[in-house]
């Protein structure tokens, strides 16, 4: 059985730039688990990862965190709450 894909999420300005809100990224056929940085580069969006924050399964994470099948990965533009 194939490993579960990674669920990608975008919000706010990033979502509008990309033209999509969420998509499934197929689990890759490679020895090492993918990282947020690797996936971000594959998306071809113009924003720099240096300006974004990353969340994996609703928790902040680093760009090199090894991902697991079925993870939810979100790229977050600068936060402006409160």
């Amino acid at each position: 059985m194939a490993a579960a894909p990674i669920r990608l999420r975008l919000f706010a300005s990033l979502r509008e730039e990309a033209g999509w809100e969420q998509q499934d990224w197929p689990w890759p056929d490679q020895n090492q688990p993918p990282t947020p940085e690797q996936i971000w580069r594959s998306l071809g969006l113009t924003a720099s990862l240096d300006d974004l924050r990353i969340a994996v399964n609703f928790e902040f994470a680093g760009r090199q965190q090894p991902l697991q099948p079925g993870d939810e990965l979100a790229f977050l533009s600068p936060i402006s709450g409160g």
Partner: protein
Amino acid sequence: MGPVISVQVLLSPEPFDPYSLLAIWSADHPAAAESHFIGRVRPVTGANQQLDALELEHYPGMAERQLQQLATTQAQHHGVKAVLVQHRVGLITPKAAIVLVAVAADRRGPAQRCCQALLEALKHDAPFWKREWSAGVGTWVQGNTPLGDGG
């Protein structure tokens, strides 16, 4: 195990009256010291244009979790008794309340420090995004004004 701290976090798509909430919360959490912060929508945009509405987007699931974690962490760090955070989401009209932070403690120092620290934490570490609507055009706000730099 430390003392039990009451942490109440709510996201609201509907307008809320902070003073009504405070009256109920304060009665339920009697303390010698309380500190409150109410944030409201400004009537103008960052570019000094008339603001029609402020749209507040959030990451469902993560925003609630982050608010709960931030409130718990600050409450434990400052040794306070109770914390309330109410945060609007969705489309908000000028002058309406966006956020209410309330802290109950034994002394004014912990109450005031916790309230300020929690407000700064949620402004920078909870996944919310503001979009200003003016004359039919929406503009995303990029980040928050640092405290002490006009913030």
